[in-house]
């Protein structure tokens, strides 16, 4: 089955190892990726959205229309891109007045939003279009015993009216995807808490992130597993900055789900860039590469 990947700014310009991990792993499960030229930022669901909602709809609709021309559903690999593209896609489909207004803007560059494709995070597509068994079939090095603390982030699940992926209060999708590669998902008290990236008062995200990290420590997990490069930023480099600021010691490796998947399928840790993470993954690598 064919899909158009939308990797977004953060992944393409800051964490190319994640893009590599997605490309390597999902194709093994059976996705065929058809790249589309000319995408811009999704655009950003926090500050661009806060600046002007009509412009947000318009820029997102242009991205959607580029993919519509090719005709395959979009897979996203970042929670932010998922939030923007899924919400705009649905809003314009639901509200023909809004669609007409946005299409007036798109017409200036000879484009039109039709609403003919779907947008889903790659993990949702793995579960729904391929299934957990199909993922397990691709695994040649099961991650037996690797304890992964799950971090959902906000926009895979919410708003559920738009995302329609899972129960936003008791989700199972990421736990099941981890079990499919033989890892042991750890659901801790703050599994569903967000990273607080959008708050302007530093103390709020600082406390949130530390609370999450402390809960993971208490559960003795080997690493934290997540599905968004922005959350990754907040927990990987963020963990080091917070440790310095509050004189705490954190040493929790942070891993992107598709890195774990690719490694389970036989990739080297270097091929998916585990060595590029700020928090050392040495101990983890011993365990996963065994």
């Amino acid at each position, binding site marked *: 089955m064919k899909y158009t990947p939308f990797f977004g*700014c*953060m992944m*393409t*310009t*800051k964490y*190319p*190892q994640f*893009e*590599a991990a997605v*490309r390597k792993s999902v194709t093994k499960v059976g996705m065929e990726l058809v*790249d589309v*030229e*000319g*995408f*811009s*930022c999704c*655009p*950003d*669901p*926090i*500050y*661009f*959205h*806060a*600046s*002007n*909602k*009509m*412009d947000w*709809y*318009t*820029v997102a609709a*242009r991205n959607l229309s580029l993919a519509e021309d090719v005709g395959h559903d979009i897979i996203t690999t970042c929670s932010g891109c998922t*939030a923007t593209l899924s919400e705009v896609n649905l809003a314009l489909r639901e509200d023909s007045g809004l669609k007409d207004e946005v299409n007036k*803007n*798109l017409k*200036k*560059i000879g484009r039109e939003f039709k609403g003919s494709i779907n947008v889903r995070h790659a993990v949702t597509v793995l579960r729904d279009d391929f299934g957990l068994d199909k993922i397990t079939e691709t695994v040649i090095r099961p991650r037996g015993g690797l304890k992964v603390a799950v971090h959902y982030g*906000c*926009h895979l699940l*919410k*708003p*559920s*009216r738009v995302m329609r992926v899972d129960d*936003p*209060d008791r989700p199972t999708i990421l736990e099941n995807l981890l079990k499919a590669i033989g890892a042991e998902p750890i659901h801790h008290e703050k599994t569903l*808490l*967000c990273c*607080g*990236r*959008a*708050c*302007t*008062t530093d*103390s*709020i995200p600082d*406390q*949130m992130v530390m609370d999450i990290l402390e809960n993971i420590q208490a559960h003795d997990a080997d690493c934290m597993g997540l599905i968004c490069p922005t959350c990754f930023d907040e927990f990987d480099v963020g963990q080091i900055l917070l440790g310095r600021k509050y004189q705490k010691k954190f040493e929790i490796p942070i891993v992107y789900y598709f890195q774990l998947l690719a490694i389970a399928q036989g990739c080297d840790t270097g091929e998916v*860039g585990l060595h*590029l993470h700020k928090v050392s993954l040495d101990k983890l690598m011993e365990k996963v590469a065994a």
Partner: protein
Amino acid sequence: MGSEMQSVRSEKAGLNFAFREKLNSVAEGFRHNYCYQCGACVADCPAGNYSEVFNPRLILLKAILGFENELISAESEIWDCTNCYTCSERCPQDVRPIDVIIALKNICVRERKAPQFVGKVYESVMASGITTKMSSLVAKRREEFGLRPVKDVPVEELKKMIGLD
């Protein structure tokens, strides 16, 4: 006539309906009218749980009462919302409090009362098509991972659509 009646009533009640009308005119802003102050959005709001002042019900109350100066400001608590959408899950009235908060932020930006960095993200997208910057280090890394080079975004298209050309 209708709006005259309304302004007479609003004066009596001490409400600022002019602000509510302004909010109604921004995308999704009209939803604030549906709020009946039940507080269902409060308990699981992470910004509320990690701050002394943040409370989505009170933000909605201020909107309903038209407390424009408190809401439309770079110092307003609205800038501490995490954008997590939990409140939208909880609200029985389909207010979608986060969407009302975004509408309030849109007004702040329009009236130049938003924190400076907010505009920077917008400007970056309009100037380069992305929010981040490509470095030569990452370009080299992409090559090592066998990834295609990142091409420039046709930003003139974005500007044309938005009317900035």
